[in-house]
């Protein structure tokens, strides 16, 4: 029980990921049917995705999309910080970009544009313009980075699956079977003949 509470319960997602990964790997290595192998491969890959998503999950973390009041507050802060006078009036329905352009056209936007430009150039080091600090609580949102990585991994997975299936079809066309042992037997029989 001590083992369970100490090692399993706090990490149960990770335990399941390992189990799924083992199932997938086992199928990839030992299954005889080629399509089964590919299904195993997909399970193997989803297990890895499960691992990544689990590591980015947060207790009480929301989906990583700003909505509602936080978005409103953020918008307001941005408008005040960068829109200057232009957007101060009604930050609630923040001007879409086009309107904003026409808005600021009335103003003498010469140095405003300059400011924006210089802002764009060096926004890496904005450590000291923290006037919006605290609007977004980083702990309230799930970590977006693993999600991004896993989108890519899913794409890679489906591409690999497709290529694998195409090869399976070609093997079936050449050998008339998708059982590995039968294919190997036929290969052995055809040994010596090339091609």
């Amino acid at each position: 029980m001590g083992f369970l509470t100490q090692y399993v319960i706090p990490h149960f997602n990770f335990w399941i990921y390992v189990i799924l990964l083992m199932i997938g790997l086992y199928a990839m290595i030992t299954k005889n049917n080629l399509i089964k192998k590919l299904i195993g491969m997909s399970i193997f890959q989803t297990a890895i995705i499960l691992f990544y998503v689990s590591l980015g999950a947060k207790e009480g973390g929301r989906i990583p999309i700003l909505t509602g009041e936080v978005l409103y507050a953020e918008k307001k802060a941005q408008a005040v910080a960068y829109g200057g006078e232009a957007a101060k009036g009604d930050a609630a329905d923040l001007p879409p970009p086009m309107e904003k352009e026409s808005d600021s056209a009335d103003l003498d936007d010469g140095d405003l544009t300059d400011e924006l430009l210089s802002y764009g150039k060096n926004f890496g080091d904005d450590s000291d313009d923290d006037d919006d600090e605290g609007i977004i609580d980083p702990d309230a949102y799930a970590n977006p980075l693993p999600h991004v990585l896993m989108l890519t991994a899913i794409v890679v997975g489906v591409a690999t699956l497709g290529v694998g299936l195409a090869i399976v079809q070609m093997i079936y066309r050449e050998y008339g079977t998708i059982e590995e042992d039968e294919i190997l037997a036929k290969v052995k029989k055809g040994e010596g003949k090339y091609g």
Partner: protein
Amino acid sequence: MKIFGLLAVFVTGALLISAVVDFPDFGDPESPANAGEVATHFVEKTYEETHVPNMVTAVLADYRGYDTMFETVVIFTGGVAIIAILQGLGLRRKKGMVPTPPRAEGDHHDIIIGTTCRILIPVIQLFALYVVAHGHYSPGGGFQGGVILGASFILWAIARDLDAGLARMPERRFLVLGVVGILIYGVFGWVAQFLGANFLDYSVLHEVMPATDPIMARYHSMLGVEVGVAFTVTAIMFAIYAHLSTRGELEGGL
């Protein structure tokens, strides 16, 4: 073989488990991965730097845009590889290789299925375009939208037959659309390079785009990039289906 496989699996499992014990707790907001500089930066600064409320979209299309471009290339590569393996792209129907398996008995063009699909597919496609375009505010983006759009073509090809699908998207267009998608993506990078910034640095694009400032330029560029991804994914998904369902002969189908 079985024993060896089992051994390999258990060794791997034991290895992975041994580290799991060392991990931070599941869902711990203070774990290095979640509280690290990079992750906090993404959560806190994304809106400020890109005006995109969906952090995943922003990170995907901007911060890690280079990855996403190659993700698109991966899809394209997969499509080309599948076409190559199944020996497609003769751009003419190949006959006499292996006869296509006999079709199931009965009327294939079922009227109920056909009508339902006719009604459903425009809705699906509209939804797909919405997903592509609205990725900044809600889950979705070029990839998801592209898959759904591709799936609508696949659905049409399944409901009628492959020729009906190919009439909408001919064989020649598979790869052309795939290439166009990646090129759309690349153009945003190359223009940035041309303007003296690094590849995919959208902020300088406000000089050539109807965007007021560097941040809005990022915002709009991401949309453009997503459209590029959607192009490639749509075309390649349908291409993969068309080739896989007919063994590369593009005749018959499911």
